């Protein structure tokens, strides 16, 4: 079999070989896996991917993974913790796959928006100003008064609104724009993760956030690009490094528009599932989890073996269109 491939290459020789080499020269960076190797065989697992690299100085999913925004912290007279955030809605063009630009609507210039994190019982104050071109809101999942729900209090371009409520219940939640038309406002990028920690804290772990999303680049009501944290195949090009035996905690949120479901499968492993993160005892022990839009779960796992392990949506279509990556497990 090997020989057959070799001989075919020899026959090919000229034209195609020359272009392949020419294309390989100009590519950026030196990824951990040589995914831009122009000599990749057609059946190599790494050939199914995007070509090139995105400008990571604008938004780097490898950093976003670990970025938790605890807000500006102060103490109220009664001893309660107050956390304050400034969130601005801005229109911004983002790069969702190498060389593919999407005219997004963002919270603080990034998609997903910043991961807001607090502890149950905290007082939260979010100053929201709209510097975008359309009316927007922030709708938080969780307990709060009706006038803090971000549905009827539409914030027009140039206007401001302050959301204030107590953080409860603990768990993994999300926030997103609730202006109409809903589909457009959400798929344009107005969503983010909202983590409320339990008062007794969870065990020490390597924690990361994965917001599963997609982009309809040609506005036909169907996603062209899928991924976690916006950039197709980012963790395929830049695997997530973890240590064997260390506890890994994934905050997994499904913000995918248009498709009914999304999922995550991790190779060579099983994980504990804390549905919506609202209890401290696991609900399931599995290697594949399915989420509807808006659903989110906390996953906990340990890698037993070193090496490269793939993770991806177990809808092959999503995986092949960008929602796929690797864990690089070190001893």
């Amino acid at each position: 079999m090997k020989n057959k491939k070799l001989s075919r290459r020899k026959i090919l020789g000229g034209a195609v070989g020359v272009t392949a080499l020419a294309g390989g020269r100009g590519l950026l960076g030196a990824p951990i896996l040589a995914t831009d190797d122009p000599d990749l065989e057609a059946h190599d697992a790494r050939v199914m991917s995007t070509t090139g690299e995105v400008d990571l100085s604008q938004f780097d999913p490898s950093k976003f993974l670990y970025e938790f925004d605890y807000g500006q912290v102060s103490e109220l007279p009664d001893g309660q913790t107050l956390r304050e955030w400034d969130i601005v809605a801005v229109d911004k063009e983002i790069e969702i796959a190498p060389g593919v630009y999407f005219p997004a609507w963002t919270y603080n210039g990034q998609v997903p928006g910043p991961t807001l994190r607090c502890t149950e019982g905290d007082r939260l104050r979010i100053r929201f100003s709209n510097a975008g071109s359309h009316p927007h809101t922030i709708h938080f999942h969780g307990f709060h008064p009706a006038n803090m729900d971000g549905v009827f209090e539409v914030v027009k371009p140039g206007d401001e609104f302050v959301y204030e409520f107590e953080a409860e219940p603990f768990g993994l939640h999300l926030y997103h724009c609730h202006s109409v038309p809903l589909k457009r406002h959400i798929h344009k990028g107005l969503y983010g993760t909202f983590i409320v920690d339990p008062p007794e804290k969870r065990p020490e772990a390597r924690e990361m956030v994965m917001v599963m999303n997609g982009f309809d680049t040609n506005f036909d009501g169907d996603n062209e690009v899928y991924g976690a944290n916006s950039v197709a195949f980012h963790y395929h090009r830049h695997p997530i490094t973890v240590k064997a035996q260390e506890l890994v905690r994934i905050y997994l949120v499904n913000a995918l528009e248009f498709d009914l479901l999304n999922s995550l499968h991790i190779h060579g492993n099983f994980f504990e599932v804390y549905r919506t993160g609202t209890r401290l005892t696991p609900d399931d022990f599995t290697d594949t989890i399915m989420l509807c839009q808006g659903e989110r779960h906390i996953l906990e796992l340990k890698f037993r073996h070193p090496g490269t392990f793939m993770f991806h949506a177990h809808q092959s279509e999503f995986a092949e269109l960008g929602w796929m990556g690797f864990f690089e497990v070190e001893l």
Partner: protein
Amino acid sequence: MKQWILGLFPIVLLAGFVALFFIYGPLGVFMAAFPPVEELTIERVVLPEPDQIVLHVINGGPDPVTVAQITVDEAFWKYTTDPENKTIPRLGRMRISIPYPWVEGDTHEVMILTSTGLTFSKEIAVAIQSPRTDGTYFGTFALLGIYAGVIPVFLGLLWYPFLRELGSKWLSFFLSLTIGLLAFLAVDMLDEALETAEAVPSAFQGIALVGIGVLGAVLILFYLSDLKLGSSDQTGAEGRHWTALMIASGIGLHNLGEGLAIGASYALGEIALGTFLVVGFMLHNITEGLAIVTPVAKDQPSISRLVTLGLIAGVPTVLGTWIGGFSYSAIWATLFLAIGVGAILQVIYQLLVLFTRKGETVFTNAYNVSGFFLGLGIMYGTGLLVV
């Protein structure tokens, strides 16, 4: 000299106003939020080897387009481009190579995702390895062309001895039949030219190409006929030979179009559907030899002359299969087909002139009328075999 300057003056002014329009014009109002207008055409998909797909892309839109990513069957796939720069200028071309393990006989869809997120896709209806430009394929295509075009034309020419002995009424019958055949071919070919024109990138204005091809061919052939025959009797022996030559040339262009169709469908894997297509073309084309030889039936043309006419009409089929099989281009196909239409229309005119010598028209008597309609009928009937 001064006159030429005066002639150029409006053009210079126009250039000035165009510049003003771009700098200060009202265009700025509209430009604000719109993405550029992008239009890519995947002109050809080649499967040169089992694990390789090659796309030939042309930018027929008003703005440059940057190719960002490629998907095959809804999966992002690595690719390389030639030239390396991924921005295709207006009217520019690019070749994209994708190491994809396509499946023989299956349908695949390739899609280009541009930097603005627009998508352009093309279906590979039946995946089959594309012909290589080597001796075997050249030979195979030549043979297909010879069977579909050359052999039937020469068989048709063999009706010459039969026609030679015919009386004047029957000859008129066959001349009318020829006109019927040609009229059918003209319509058939125009239809094909218009259909191909739809695949032409819009900047190349497919319909305009058809118009230019048809009118251009008609006018140039009139001019050439005039140059060749001058004021001599256009309906004399020389005129009839000229007419036969024109018929052969027009049919040659028509057969070039048929060759393109055969070659392109072979390259797309469609010819695997059967030898039916080639057999259909053979039956269809035997009448073409008849059309060529009828005008000169009474002139005792030499064998070499008849062979020359046959080659002019038949050999383009072979050229067509080569072009269609190895480097099909909708732009050139449209132009060739349109020229063929013009050539045939001009030939029909020449034949009508031949009739006038005898004080007849196609509709003078029952022989001619039935000949004309039989010509149409034969073409329609044999055409049923080609579809």
